[in-house]
């Protein structure tokens, strides 16, 4: 079993890994607002329990076990956020802190009930995707959207930022990283792709689609 404190560390490392890998100890200290010595001590513990490994230059990386645990926590956190907004009707900007506490104390039965109640929603109130139970979202293998065919589902991993205007335009349409999409159709002769996002369908030309890096979701 992991303590709430361990869980907090795992979540923080996971979050920082999204920005830059490996994670540096001082960034972790800043992020958690704790002193560097206590970080060092906790890291030793995490290493011992197999959640974390250190690189040669003392960088911090989650092990597979650590990552799975972190993703599980992210999922719990976001499910709680949805519960607080959708079911209890609490304003979405106020739910983060409560979700932080709830995610660490709920028993597996409560968590399961929560999942059933919310019918596995795709995103948290803040628009973040909720990773599925097996932790799909942290895939490393990304391909350009153009590599996928009709009927495939994918998660947007990143959009190359060569054209900030295009990036911004796509963002207004809801095409942002960590969002699930489905390729509905691919026009013949290497034509554009028809992509479904939420309830809307968009036609994306090849040159646009090739800039969107995705990871395939296999059901």
């Amino acid at each position: 079993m992991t303590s709430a404190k361990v869980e907090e560390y795992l979540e923080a490392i996971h979050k920082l890994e999204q920005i830059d890998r490996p994670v540096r100890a001082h960034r972790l200290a800043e992020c958690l607002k704790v002193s560097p010595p206590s970080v060092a001590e906790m890291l030793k513990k995490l290493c011992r329990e197999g959640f974390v490994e250190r690189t040669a230059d003392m960088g911090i990386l989650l092990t597979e076990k650590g990552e799975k645990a972190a993703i599980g926590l992210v999922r719990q956190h976001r499910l709680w956020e949805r519960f607080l907004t959708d079911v209890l009707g609490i304003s979405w900007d106020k739910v983060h802190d409560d979700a932080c506490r709830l995610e660490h104390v709920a028993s597996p039965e409560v968590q399961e009930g929560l999942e059933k109640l919310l019918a596995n929603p795709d995103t948290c109130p803040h628009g973040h995707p909720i990773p599925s139970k097996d932790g799909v979202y942290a895939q490393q293998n990304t391909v350009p959207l153009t590599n996928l065919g009709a009927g495939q589902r994918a998660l947007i991993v990143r959009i190359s930022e060569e054209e900030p205007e295009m990036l911004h335009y796509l963002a207004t349409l809801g095409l942002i990283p960590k969002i699930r999409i489905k390729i509905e159709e691919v026009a013949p002769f290497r034509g554009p792709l028809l992509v479904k996002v939420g309830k809307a369908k968009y036609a994306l030309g090849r040159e646009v689609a090739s800039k969107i890096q995705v990871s395939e979701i296999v059901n």
Partner: protein
Amino acid sequence: MPISCHSALPQIRTDTALTLALAGNPNVGKSSIFNQLTGMGVITANYPGKTVEVNMSTATFDGLQIGIVDLPGTYALGAVSEDQWVARQAVLEGKPDAVVVILDATNLARNLYMLLQFLDLGFPIIAALNIVDQAKRQGIETDARKLAEALGVPVVQTVAINGKGLDELVRVAVGVARSPGCCEIRSPGYGQDIERAIELLSKEIESKITDRPYNLSARAIAILLLENDPDFVGLIESQPNGQDTLAAASKLAAEIERDHGEAAPMRIARERHGLAGTITAQAETIKRKPSSYLVDRLWQYTTAPWTGMPILLLALASIFGFLFFAGSYLSTVFGDLWAALLSPIIDGAIYFVFGQSVISKILIWGPDAGIQASLSVGIPYVLTFYFILALLEDTGYLNSVAFLTDRIMHNLGLHGRAAIPLVAGAGCNVPAIIGTRVLTTMRERVIASFLIVLVPCSARTAVILGAVYLYAGWQPAMAIYLIVFALIFAVGIGLNKLMPGQPTGLVMEMFPFRTPNLATIIKKTWYRFKDFVFVATPIVLGGSLVLGALYETGYIWYLTGPLSPVVEGWLGLPAVAGLTLIFAVLRKELALQLLVALALVRYGHDAQNLLLFMDARQLFVYALVNTIYIPCVATIAVLGKELGWKRAALIVAATVTLAGVIGGVANWVMGSL
């Protein structure tokens, strides 16, 4: 000249008691609402250099004159695309008393994004929850009261297509607009750290920026700066202390980026989507799984690879056929009516005033022949095309066409949306060029317009058929089409290489099938048509008078001399044929009619059979040159209006050069066979 938004927006504000702006995503029934609220008197205005237009009109409610500004349909407000920029600029400058945001109940979450942006800007908002009937059929029930509570704005349910709820909408909107400050404008709450950044930046703006752009709140400007909006960054930069504010903004944006692993504009967009999703979840209940209806499934065949292409070919053939037959039918009707009813009166009046003089003869070219020309060439085809265009837009099929043809168009520096105007060019170039307004960049519009000018319109087809097919057989006639199509591709590829800039990628929403509304289609057709008539007719009239004067005074014959080296030497045509090509500027098929007439004058009755006067090779070159060179005067007028006169002149010069080179080469190749 088109009316400028800078003058039209303040005008409508002073002319009416209050103004409302209509905003919404594309295809949410916004134009239906606009058309049902307003009468026929619509003003179309645009910003200089922008192609996206803003429509304005007035409505009367309870004896109150209300100005209604119809913003372009967009997914968001911002500076990233022309339509978004125009929509935002029109509300910032027009300062409507309230903004009616029309929401598509079948896709509420995406539609709320722009409403949240309006709240951020601090405008009084009324939400019209439209298409509730279709949403119900899809099993989506939206609780308007809960939605109103979550958003903090009044929500009215409407079914625009049959006018349901529109009275209520106007009543509520007028209520909000008349009592400014009655309802507190509540901006959506973002995540805590974003809110903190907004608050810090607002304080900075309040203390340092004395003249806030467009009188927006400090909060609105803070959000725009965190979003790195280029317009507002520029506006703040030019102010005293502006640099400090911008530095503070980028510091806060960097903090957001550090904490969330994504740039601040992205983060704000994500949170806005998240907020839209949460509000939707609170207000919406899905009664059952959305089942796909037969019509939706059938609609999918329009984009599926193996069915889409045949459907497209069928659709293009029917469009072309309809344009050709309905257009030429109207053309004959208008022409005959004119000749039978008005022409004798005008001619009689002219002769009555000026007697049997040269002046009379010149004048007849203008009001009589000129108007008849636009009645029988431009107007019937323009009217028919606009009708088809509005129909295709209303059903959403235009987007399927764009999807399927995007690949081919990309080679020409265009994207799929250019396909319909290009095909329409075969009916008449004029509406086709106006139709390029669906393209977003000037680069695309110039390429598309140039290519359209090369597409043989119905009048040029008449010359090809009348001169070549009739006297030289179908093979040479076919050859002309092949040469012209090859030329269109070559020019497109060439322009794509030569013109600065990149082809823009296609990003376009695909709509489900919507039942078209005849009233909306007819009104749309009329607005566009009216615009064309007022622009093109005076130019056709003027052009006709000039040519008439040259002809009736005999000065035209002096041109035979300077033309002969090109016409006789290079193209191998009789000099008199060159003269008729000049007249083709007025109407393309006039070239052939005049050729026959002039041949009769010069060579006597034997020349009625054109082969006695020109051989098959000459007729081929003649028709080829006539097809490629100089668009007719109505086309030139529209090119000038849509693209600017400099670009129009360049396109005209380029077609003349191309026609000369290709005609000469054809003459030379056939001569050496």
